[in-house]
């Protein structure tokens, strides 16, 4: 292989250079708008109007200080952490419990129950939006955090069930059976055998639930109206979206809205991309 590479023809070299040019072009396209945003969040609005493309002449932090306080960001970030944390933990627990039962406890209902979850993968938020709004109002959960959390958990369930069941099926039946013969209850088997073994797929489900819940915007927007319950995306939209001339502050608010997911992505890059690939199996 080595000598083939060394005797590359001029054509091949041009190809390589072109490939680099194209890849660099796409990379610049992907990150330039984000860099532009960050750069401009450090300019005063007056400077932005005169200098829209260049670096700030003077890097100021005043936009961040303003946006942080006036946009009530501490509250929004806390809320988003609560919604995402509770939804993710509850989704994992409930979906893996059911997935274990579907995969390892024989029952005639499994075909229908599991099937109904799989159909859920194809359902869209749009088709449940209005009914959910009416139902949540009817049961008195409008404008409560529970009224947001229950739908979030239900929406995340199908993927958890689907991936969980597939994975737990691949665990040998003999492990469960021998534990049964030793007198272990199904609960004990679930906690001490299934949960530790299913950890890798649980990470995938957790990551998908975290990204989905953290970025969710449409449902929480219609199921709540109080400031105290807003999530980060809703808060950013209400605050930054309304600033049509105070660009510095708007950009700072957007950067604050962007940072948590950026940190999450850079920390769990490998797991996130694995999750995307796993999620694409559906269909």
């Amino acid at each position, binding site marked *: 292989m080595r000598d083939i590479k060394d005797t590359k023809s001029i054509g091949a070299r041009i190809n390589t250079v072109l490939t680099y040019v194209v890849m660099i072009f796409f990379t610049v396209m992907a990150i330039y*708008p984000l860099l532009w945003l960050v750069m401009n969040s450090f300019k005063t609005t007056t400077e932005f109007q005169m200098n829209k493309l260049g670096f700030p002449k003077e890097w100021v932090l005043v936009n961040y200080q303003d946006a942080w306080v006036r946009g009530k960001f501490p509250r929004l970030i806390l809320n988003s952490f609560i919604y995402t944390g509770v939804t993710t933990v509850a989704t994992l627990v*409930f979906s893996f419990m059911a997935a*274990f*039962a579907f995969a390892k406890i024989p029952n005639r209902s499994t075909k229908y129950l599991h099937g109904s*979850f799989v159909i859920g993968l194809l359902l*869209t938020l749009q088709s449940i939006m209005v009914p*959910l709004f009416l139902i949540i109002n009817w049961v008195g959960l409008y404008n409560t955090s529970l009224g947001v959390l229950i739908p979030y958990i239900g929406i995340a369930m199908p993927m958890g069930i689907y991936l969980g069941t597939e994975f737990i099926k691949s665990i040998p039946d003999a492990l469960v059976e021998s534990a049964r013969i030793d007198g272990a209850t199904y609960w004990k088997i679930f906690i001490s055998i299934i949960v530790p073994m299913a950890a890798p797929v649980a990470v995938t489900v957790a990551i998908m639930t975290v990204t989905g819940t953290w970025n969710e915007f449409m449902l929480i927007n219609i199921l709540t109206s109080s400031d105290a319950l807003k999530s980060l995306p809703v808060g950013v939209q209400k605050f930054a979206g309304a600033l049509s001339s105070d660009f510095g502050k708007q*950009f700072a608010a957007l950067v604050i809205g962007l940072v948590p997911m950026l940190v999450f992505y850079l920390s769990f890059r490998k797991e996130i*991309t694995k999750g995307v690939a796993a999620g694409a199996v559906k269909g």
Partner: protein
Amino acid sequence: MPKVHTLADAKREQRRAYWTLVLPGFLIYISVMAFPTVFSVILSLTDYNGGRLFGGKPVSFVGFKWYGRLFVDEYFYLALKNNLWIVLVSVFGQIPLGFFLAYVLHRGLVRYGDFFQTMIYLPTVISTVVIGILWKSFFAPYGAFPELMRLFNPSYEYGISSHPLFPVLFVILWMYTGMYMIIFIANLQKIDGSVIEAAKIDGASEGQTLRYIILPALSGVLVVSAILAISGSLKSFDLIYVMTGGGPANRTTVLSIYMFDKAFKGAPNYPLANAISTVMVLISFSLIGLTKWVEHKFGGKE
């Protein structure tokens, strides 16, 4: 001593364990997804318009009245047309581009592949809301886009665009291409590398390897990606809601925004909104069915 005494005991314990494990999740799922979906279809056939859901004003069935109303509304067709544009950009833009990027990265045609991959996927993970406002400001008359254009063409004047959907389509392409890239990379990795090596030793060119080994192996994934792109495109809401709100003058509206406006803006018309969402689900399912049919008809082995 075994804990289970008789077969009947064992069966009973098994059944009890099954239902305690399944029910919590199933009840939540049924109440927030399955039931509302059915409820939505039912609502679309009634004249319910606000007020108490049960025990309030009597609600009567009006048949397909709202569907009839929908099919004579010009905004429905406008929204549908915009949705189809998004489907086209997704299927014929995101997927080929994503495939190209995945191919270059997977075959190791460039160094620092990991860096390229991380950067190109980055836009996908950021909140749509942040992305939407960012691009709205970027494309705005006072934003960077007119300025950038003037670098290349000093006489560029910002005018009201005759194609207001263009920026939206561009941002959709920008945001989600990385997702297809990742899907393709994951599936390229599943192809047995020795087959490709063997073909190379036998003198196959890069193009031939692609045509006769890689593409056939990926046909199943291409179909799944097309399905994801179609259903994703029909669902698109957040980005457009934030970027344009469907405006100017409803020119960039899509079905989900059209539905949202009917249900939550001004006087609510819940049955009509649910008729729209039912039609959306039907379109989505038929396009997915069509994709599967095309796959079945024109080969492509999984």
